């Protein structure tokens, strides 16, 4: 699992994609901060992460996961993984971890923003929970991206489908329909509002586990029919 996570993390930063994604995430965060500070003349970093989770995280998750299995399939390297690795789930978890680690790099840099603003006022300590839950949300988003990537050889198709799947529910999530359960950013908003929602954490974790299981089933189906 760690071997695959390290290898994929390295591959992300071997190509420009890792750097571009970190830059896009930080730039988007900067814009959100600027717009919020102009409006209210103060900054609540919980809200900055809330907006990032809603708008930029789905896109960067899609960009980071589009290579996960699609590239392995097109380069035929999946043969190496499937024949050498003992467990299918450890391959999937390794790939999700690589994405979480890459987003973690962006989060660590974003913490510098918070520290810079600490000069002008105390930082809300709930921010630690917000950031930790942001990582859990990243894990859930990454699991969706990895699952979609296992279905296609095309990175572009994987990226488009993942973005679509992650962003769409948040636009139709008002009320209590199916979309409200699929819109993970809504669960995250509750945490950012200052309520440590156990429900939200359970949703993120169970969403991740479901996606891992579905990816594993897809991989096994591939072995049987291909």
């Amino acid at each position, binding site marked *: 699992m*760690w*071997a*695959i996570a390290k*290898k994929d993390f*390295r*591959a992300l930063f*071997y*190509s420009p994609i890792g750097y571009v994604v970190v830059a896009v995430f930080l730039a988007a965060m900067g814009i959100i901060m600027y717009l919020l500070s102009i409006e209210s003349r103060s900054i609540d970093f919980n809200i900055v992460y809330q907006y990032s989770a809603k708008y930029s995280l789905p896109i960067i998750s899609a960009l980071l996961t589009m290579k996960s299995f699609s590239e392995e399939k097109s*380069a*035929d*390297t999946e*043969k*190496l*993984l*499937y*024949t*050498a*690795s*003992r*467990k*299918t789930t450890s391959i999937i978890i390794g790939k999700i971890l690589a994405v979480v680690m890459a987003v973690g790099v962006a989060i660590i840099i974003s913490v510098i923003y918070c520290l810079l603003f600490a000069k002008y006022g105390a930082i809300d300590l709930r921010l630690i929970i917000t950031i930790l839950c942001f990582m859990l949300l990243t894990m859930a988003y990454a699991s969706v991206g990895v699952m979609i990537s296992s279905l296609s050889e095309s990175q572009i198709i994987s990226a488009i489908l993942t973005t679509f799947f992650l962003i769409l529910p948040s636009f139709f999530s008002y009320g209590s329909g199916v979309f409200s359960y699929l819109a993970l950013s809504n669960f995250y908003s509750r945490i950012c509002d200052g309520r440590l929602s156990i429900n939200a954490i359970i949703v993120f974790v169970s969403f991740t586990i479901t996606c891992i299981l579905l990816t594993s089933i897809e991989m096994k189906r591939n*072995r*049987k029919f*291909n």
Partner: protein
Amino acid sequence: MIELKNVTKMYGNFKALDNVNFKIEKGEVVGFLGQNGAGKTTTMKIITGLIEPTEGEVYVNNERISKKNSTKIGYMPENTPLYNSLTVREFINFMGEIKGIKRAERKKAVDEVIKILNLQSVEKKLIKNISRGYKQRVSFAGALIGKPDILILDEPMVGLDPKQIIEIRNLIKSLKGAHTILLSSHILSEINQICEKVIIIEKGKIIATDTPANLENQISNNIVNITVEDPKNNIQRIKEKIDEIDEIKFIKNISKYEKEYEIKVIGDSDIRKSLMTISPEFDITIVELRKSKSTLEDVFVNLIKEEEEI
């Protein structure tokens, strides 16, 4: 030990493997021959656990193949898929890590494999920057790390220059006994030199399993090649004296006076002595005389032809 029992693989309505049965004993080096699309790679993928058979069973060391024991198999896939973003050492280390070799033993295992495959000069280079020959060796190293009991090598010599082929050939020979090896190749002369047993597959069916020598003896190819000085052009008249001769075929002019012919003989008789005795009678001087033997290539072509006729 590898054993396939009644293995069938369907891709939709297409039967890629049709009731395949064979057994490879421990320590054997076996060549797997077949035309493109005959089912070699599918069979190898099934043995490695990469894909599942539609019917039948695969046993490795008397245990049914599963994820648990598939790590006893080192697989070198066709076309050497590798991770270009890793260096040679990192790749081999990665393969060791996913095969479950513990950190304490891994460095030693990586060093050993690098030494065996003579990769010291490129170990710190990115895989994308090394030559095809080295890539082939790196892929081999990935299969070899962890000392798996079984090595499945799919076209390990494709794209290599003659020097590299000799190196890989010697390497496989050196692994004989310690590993059970199944290798596919289109270079039949290599298979002949390396393998003690050959399995030939055609249209998903095993059509022959034997030693290269036995397979070669299966074809009665009684031909004598003769190079002569024949100023009076009497060569065809030899037929009058030796009844076993079926046909004398001109091959080429070696020089102004010397000509090469191929003599097809009926049955198994050896006519070389008779030729030596009779030729002076016709003013023919024999410069070279040799009985040609059927090669593995002849056997392969012959068996494929027979199968197509059926």
